[in-house]
């Protein structure tokens, strides 16, 4: 293959960390540029959307999409990239599962606007102005992207070929991506649709602290700031809520190396029915002491009650891809016949 691979990266509801993470490739970034031409990367290079649109459909080889889909513009971007790219990559936890922006699904457009344009202490908005998709300014119509009620992952908008999880994806997995690109450049081979560039097993399996796991119950879960954690002992043994039991491995253990428990940015394993439920089932089962028959209910439940904010804890990166992927409000009750 003589021609270089054409690659594009775009961002949506994201923090920008994924774009920066590409730099974690360090000198391997040069390997990427040897085999690939970046034809579109709005964060780093001066391309316009029309440059991407100008490419023939399928004229782009690899499309990297980071961020969740929150606005109509992001949805258009996702569909555009899908149309142009032979291989669409959900780059990072937000594109893969909805990510932290996905927690906005606990609220809705109205709730968010009411807070952002109304009730925060620093908001001064006496006329109650809200962003409108269309408005007339000086006789001319101006438009803004529409703000959706629900945040979605990329896969909920367009078919995804490759998933690269992580918040942001770590260098090891970026190298996998480069290799996938190289393989595509050399052979034209694409991985099976939906391939996840991470390990199949959950993080515990590769955690160096696994050997210290004794399998005891957790009387009460404590939060990281409440404990000076032992850097070598399993977090669960220390009463710290760690999602390594239900989160895909392959992240390079950077949180654990920094003595922080896993927060789940690599998403659930392939077997999970729901990104939160399995961890919830497991931790809910070992929460509390093994003396349930001897203590009153409020003592028996102290362990599970110490798990605060289950949605925020277990769905931190995954709510849009959950079984029940958003909070439901204002659904009028059906009258019984």
């Amino acid at each position, binding site marked *: 293959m003589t021609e270089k691979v054409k690659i594009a990266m775009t961002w949506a509801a994201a923090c920008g960390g994924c774009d920066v993470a590409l730099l974690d490739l360090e000198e391997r970034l040069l390997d990427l540029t040897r085999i690939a031409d970046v034809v579109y990367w709005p964060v780093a290079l001066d391309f316009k959307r029309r440059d991407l649109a100008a490419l023939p459909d399928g004229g782009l080889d690899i499309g990297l999409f980071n961020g969740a889909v929150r606005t109509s513009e992001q949805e258009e971007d996702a569909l555009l990239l899908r149309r142009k790219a032979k291989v669409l990559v959900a780059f990072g936890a937000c594109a893969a599962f909805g990510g932290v922006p996905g927690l906005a699904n606990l609220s809705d457009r109205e709730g968010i606007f009411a807070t952002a344009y109304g009730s925060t202490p620093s908001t001064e908005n006496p006329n109650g102005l809200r962003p409108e998709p269309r408005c007339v300014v000086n006789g001319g119509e101006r438009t803004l992207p529409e703000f959706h009620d629900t945040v979605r992952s990329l896969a909920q908008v367009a078919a995804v070929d490759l998933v690269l999880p992580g918040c942001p994806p770590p260098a090891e997995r970026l190298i996998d991506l480069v290799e996938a690109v190289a393989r595509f450049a050399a052979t034209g081979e694409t991985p099976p649709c939906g391939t996840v560039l991470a390990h199949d097993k959950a993080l515990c399996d590769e955690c160096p602290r696994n050997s210290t796991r004794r399998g005891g119950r957790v009387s009460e879960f404590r939060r990281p700031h409440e404990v000076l954690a032992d850097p070598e002992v399993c977090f669960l043994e220390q009463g710290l809520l760690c999602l390594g039991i239900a989160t895909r491995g392959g992240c390079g253990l950077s949180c654990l190396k920094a003595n922080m428990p896993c927060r789940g940015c690599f998403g659930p394993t392939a077997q*999970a029915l729901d990104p939160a*439920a399995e961890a919830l*089932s497991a931790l809910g*089962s070992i929460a509390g002491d093994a003396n349930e028959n001897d203590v009153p209910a409020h003592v028996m439940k102290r362990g*599970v009650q110490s798990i605060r904010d289950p949605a925020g804890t277990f769905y931190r990166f995954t709510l849009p891809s959950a079984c029940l992927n958003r909070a439901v409000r204002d659904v009028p009750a059906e009258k019984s016949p």
Partner: protein
Amino acid sequence: MAGRIGVFVCECKGQVSGTIDVARVCAAARALPDVGFAEQVGMLCGEADLGAAVRRLRDSGSDRMLFAGCSPRSSLKFPEERIARVMGGLGQPAALFEVANIREQCAWQHADREQATRKAVDLVRMAHARLVTLEPPPEPVPLPSRALVVGGGPAGLQAAKDLEAAGVEVTLVERRPWLGGRLCQLLRIYQSEGWPSVCDSSCVGPVQAKGVMLSERIRAYTRARVTAVKRIDGRFRVTVDASPEYVDPGLCISCGECARVCPEETPRLADEGLSRRKAIDKEFERALPDVYSIVEEACTRCGACVPACPTQAIDLSRQPRTFTEDYGAVFLAAGVEALDLSSYPQYLRSHPNVVTGIEFEQIMARGFKRPSDGRVPEQVVFVQCAGSRAGPDKEVGGVPYCSKTCCAVTVKQVDRMAVANPAIEATVVYYRDMRTYERALESLYQNLRNVGIEFVNGEVTGIEGNGDGRLSLSVAPCVSGDADEEPEALSLEADLVVLAAAQEPARGSAELYRMFGVGTDRHGFPIENQPRLFRPTESLVNRVFVVGESTGPKAVQQCAEQGSAAAMRALPELLAGRALPPRFASRVDARRCIKCRVCETVCPHGAIRITEEGAASDPAFCQACGLCAAACPVHAAELANFTDRQILAQAKVAFRELPAGEPRILALLCYWCSYSAADFAGVERVRAPANYRVIRIRCSSSVNTGLVLEMFRLGVDGILVAGCPEKSCHHLWGNFLADKRTDLARALLSQLGVEPGRLRFEYIGAPMQAKLMTALRDMDGKLRKLGRNPAARAAGGA
């Protein structure tokens, strides 16, 4: 497997067909995949219909049966055990049938023919969804026909003898140097419910032990202990350490020449250290094995005994013996021992004339001589509940339970003393009640009162030494409901005090129970398997039996009864040399396992082992509760015939016939208790809302939260999870785990805007049909107000 399912829909001679359109149910069944035939029968439990059905199944080459009729759990005529027999008779795996409970949980609960028929069709669909994916049960697991008995007291000896008599090879391990346990330390043993007769331990002790010593199939090790246990493939791989056999039992003639020349002394175990023995000696004259033994810690290896032995039986160079062997069943008869009362200074345990009941037995044997100076006391005070029945009303602490044997033992001791030496004055201070339990002991007690033995109701709150070996006791009155009685503090004088010390699990037994995976309660006693009424001596671990006083203080006779009972419980598997795993046995896919050990933590039955490759579930230890499967965060653990896929398949078809707008209520009811409650509601013809469907799950904790969320996504409007009542779960803590996880899931759901009332957990025992119906009606009412489950709409579910 096209066309291999035979369906029978039973009319129950009108009891079903009176309410349900059976022909319509049959027609619906015929339309289901793989169904060869679906037929209506009058009463399948009757010999004529059953015979015809068996022929029909055989002629059609059916390998699975779907029976729609009475409850598989509660039917008294055609329960699942009988259906399994029918399938077995067809030469098919007995597990390949499924029952749609259209009688107790449908025809008997709903009056409206249309509603009942619709529900019956759904129930048949649900049963069918499971049936098509059922697999034959796991293969039997071979077991060694060899048993291990730990503890050589009356219970252990009885178990060993009964097993041996049935042809089982037995290894018996006893930590002390003699067989017979504490029985040998009691002078007389009361023996009958009927009249106050006694046996003498010097007679019956050796009689029991002799049977064990002389048996060719029993190998008994004294001064031995279990040091390691592995549970592998249904068997127990046990390592035993036994002290060196310095004295050859084949040569020792118990002449005592060695002890005569031995220069070293050490406290004698058998009399609780009241006297001393030589480093090489026999603990007591009639001890078995009939061989002199050496106390390691006391022996200086001076060698004086070696040439003194006329039979050259002594070899001081002998090494400890360690062996590892596989056993098919284990009997733990670790017993109890007296609570160490030295931590309660009120009892002045350090005073030589303050002794425990078992020490007093030895004092009786030595002519009632008090320890301080060997004089016969004038006044003996017996103190009951020393360390027992501790609570807010009691001044001195201890264990909260009654030690059960002390009152009877004290009555026996006072009686012996009154007969043997009437000059000694006896006073019994009892806390609140005298509880002699056996009929014979009660008459003895009354007799003692009649002859003027003083029984004082009160609590001994302090004992003080007055010098010259005398003691004075402060007695606080017990709080009494009797207003006329003015309670008064008392002071008693004594020159010997006998404390009826509380009994607690023998020291070292905690480690023993831990090694065998046997759960213990907060007092350290092993927990018995549920339902305890009809599973005597079973621990939570298959084929580990807890006998004698290991589960609590007992009379000698009851200990022996337990030994026999346990042997009987174990014999079927030991003699067959195999264990039959449950049809729902758990299994772990090591390729997914991450060794988080959550399964091991929640398994109440010691069936999970962590290996290099990952967790492994042993089907021969599994009791099919499903706790591991529901708690596994990566779905590596699952139950055969009870997989997530099977449960979801049932949920998916559960409401096909339910008219739109009716709330869809799914009740996940535990296999034994809560499912029965739904049956009992039918038996009592309680009218229930017709829009609920039951999935009979294993333990209430066998369903993962992911399944619950998925069910909501599929469009179920409300889910009721129900398990056994508190303290009665068949799997120790399964109901509590389900309750806790449901709370957590409700918190999650409410954050998602789903009304938490759509998911609830209830503790519902078999006879608590009223509670079940209240919960269902309440949910039905609330769901009608709430309307369709918003999650299903948001997710675009069914």
